[in-house]
């Protein structure tokens, strides 16, 4: 038995952990075990990758099986880390079609959470780019799912948080890039209206995201920096920084948070200072396009190892909701007001635009998504419960990969694809056999 947690370090649950070293070892485990779920690199924040009794680690399934340089098609085993894939594909002039905010995730995890990136409004989620995946089912069989074969199973598995079986392999197409640099433009937004408008206006830009200063209040509520970027072309490089190596080596050196911060470290003062500095640093570069290495652009927090420890031993809650476009201004304003009043504000507040998604339990829908971090305290739960009520009323929902605490009612209200998902779980014998702490908590 091992005590497992997600990246938020809350909650903690004991589980047996199995570590198959080859894909062919997985199907026998699927029939022999009950109450199991697969786990990649443990970067889901809550309880999604903790098995009810058994957790099946995919980390040894880490082979890249095929990489076609002429088409950019790549076939990988589920446990391949994005961090391991990037140094292989970037120097060849390719980039994953979608990346989440950390590169320490597995390909299987990216499919299971149907992760989105800063380009969701334009390119959709990771699942939209998956051509096929290989799934080990509870009955010990192995199936290939694609848009043509076992389509229902594919759509249940994308965003299905591992609850339809264990993903063994994923095949998808990479995008071509001319350089490993990003051409970024930072714009300051004075308030929430401004931020939403700027994000909508930059809809044609491939990557865009807003960092919100959560402690700004009143007319400055929602004050933020908008980061919009494209993969830099060779021409961009020539114009902005002639003579630059088009494919810079991976970023070296990293800060690390070696110990747990005491819980009081994150009071209003430290957060406010952090936000203020961040705001100023960004505002200086505002307006001018400049070059940024792909690594710090896409994965800023990966530069600080174990940053989750900054919230102390009790852990933290990450809350990510999506609000349909027409209600976004009102609901996001309400949420930000609640958070800014609390003082021990969110360390991170990220806002971005989203498009629709395909999976039965995929998170994105057309609207805006807001991400908050809160240290685990008594009042954090009640605050988020209140936030959830606004989310539900707006027709929005919460991201399962982040969730550790939403109620079954909130979940059911947000995911109309749930009944179809349950039907599929029953039809493949997954109901009651494949279960995580999350699926039990939410009654999936």
């Amino acid at each position: 038995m091992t005590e497992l947690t997600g990246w938020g370090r809350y909650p903690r649950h004991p589980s047996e952990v199995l570590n198959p070293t080859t894909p062919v070892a997985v199907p026998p485990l699927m029939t022999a075990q009950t109450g199991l779920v697969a786990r990649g690199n443990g970067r889901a924040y809550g309880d999604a990758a903790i098995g009810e009794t058994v957790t099946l680690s995919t980390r040894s399934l880490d082979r890249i099986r095929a990489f076609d340089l002429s088409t950019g098609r790549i076939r990988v085993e589920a446990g391949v880390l994005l961090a391991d894939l990037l140094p292989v594909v970037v120097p060849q002039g390719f980039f994953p079609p979608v990346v989440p905010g950390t590169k320490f995730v597995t390909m299987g995890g990216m499919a299971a959470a149907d992760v989105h990136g800063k380009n969701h409004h334009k390119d959709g989620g990771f699942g939209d780019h998956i051509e096929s995946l290989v799934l080990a089912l509870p009955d010990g069989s192995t199936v290939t799912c694609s848009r043509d074969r076992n389509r229902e199973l594919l759509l249940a598995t994308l965003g299905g948080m591992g609850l339809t079986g264990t993903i063994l392999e994923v095949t998808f197409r990479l995008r071509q890039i001319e350089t490993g640099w990003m051409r970024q433009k930072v714009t300051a937004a004075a308030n929430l209206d401004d931020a939403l408008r700027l994000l909508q206006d930059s809809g044609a830009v491939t990557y865009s995201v807003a960092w919100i200063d959560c402690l700004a209040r009143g007319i400055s509520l929602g004050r933020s920096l908008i980061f919009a970027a494209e993969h830099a072309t060779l021409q961009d490089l020539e114009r902005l920084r002639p003579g630059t190596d088009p494919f810079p080596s991976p970023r070296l050196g990293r800060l690390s948070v070696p110990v747990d911060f005491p819980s009081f470290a994150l009071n209003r003062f430290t957060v406010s200072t952090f936000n203020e500095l961040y705001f100023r640093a960004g505002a200086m570069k505002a307006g001018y396009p400049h070059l940024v290495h792909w690594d710090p652009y896409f994965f800023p927090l990966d530069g600080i190892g174990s940053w989750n420890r900054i919230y102390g031993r009790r852990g933290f809650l990450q809350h990510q909701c999506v609000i349909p476009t027409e209600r976004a201004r009102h609901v996001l304003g309400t949420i930000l007001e609640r958070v800014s009043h609390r003082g021990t504000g969110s360390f991170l507040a990220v806002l971005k635009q989203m498009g629709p998604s395909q999976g039965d339990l995929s998170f994105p829908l057309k609207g805006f998504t807001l991400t908050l971090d809160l240290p685990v305290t008594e009042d954090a739960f009640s605050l988020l419960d209140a936030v959830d009520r606004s989310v539900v009323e707006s027709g929005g929902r919460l991201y399962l990969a982040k969730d550790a605490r939403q109620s079954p009612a909130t979940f059911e209200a947000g995911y109309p694809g749930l009944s179809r998902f349950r039907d599929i779980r029953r039809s493949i014998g997954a109901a009651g056999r494949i279960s995580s702490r999350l699926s039990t908590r939410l009654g999936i």
Partner: protein
Amino acid sequence: MASSNTLLLIGGTSDIGRATALRYAEAGWRILLAARNEKEARRNAEDIAARTGVEVTTYSLDILQTDRFENFLDGLPHLPDTAVCVVGELGDQVRGQSDPAHATLLLRTNFEGPVLLLGAIAERFLARGSGTIVGVSSVAGDRGRASNYLYGAGKAGFTAFLSGLRNRLSPKGLRVITVKPGFVRTQMTAGMRLPPLLTAEPNEVGRAIFDAAEKSRKDIVYVRRIWHPVMMVIGGLPEGIFKRLRL
């Protein structure tokens, strides 16, 4: 980077074998992967090819079927430039103490098979006049310990073989390298509690092998240098003291 050299890696499904082959492939070497379970070896072959773009081919080879070694070598596209043997089986010491079949398996896998195969390769290298042989032995062969002396005895014999072979071949300009990785985080040691400072990752071993064989002139390699003084101390303990230790 590009090189027309060929590596024969014996033990192509092991973690150290995978890491070593990948390191050679990154330097542009063509890779021949031999393993008992060729299907599993193909997984590694595909991975190495996808990562590096080099050609990787797989061969079925059972280290216990010693009478097939000549056939196996005849079947290779050509004689490799370097041969690395990472075959090893820790097995179950306690079981081996009362089960002669298991003890035999450990001795044959760690000693007889590798010795006969590298011996056959050495004769071919000698006939050609060039070649480098790398044997992955173990610090467990430096001094027998209660917890793994069947494995250790096999590795001790293998170490002695490599030493003798080096003594014979080096005047002819051929190289023989003995690698003693110490603890490595692999399938073989999964679930064991290993001291972090003394424990290497498979890719450290792969790099150390490549550097020793293709860049430096080292004969005996401890992957983490700390193992050298550690084994000096362990090797230097008087038997009267050593025999009473629980190791």
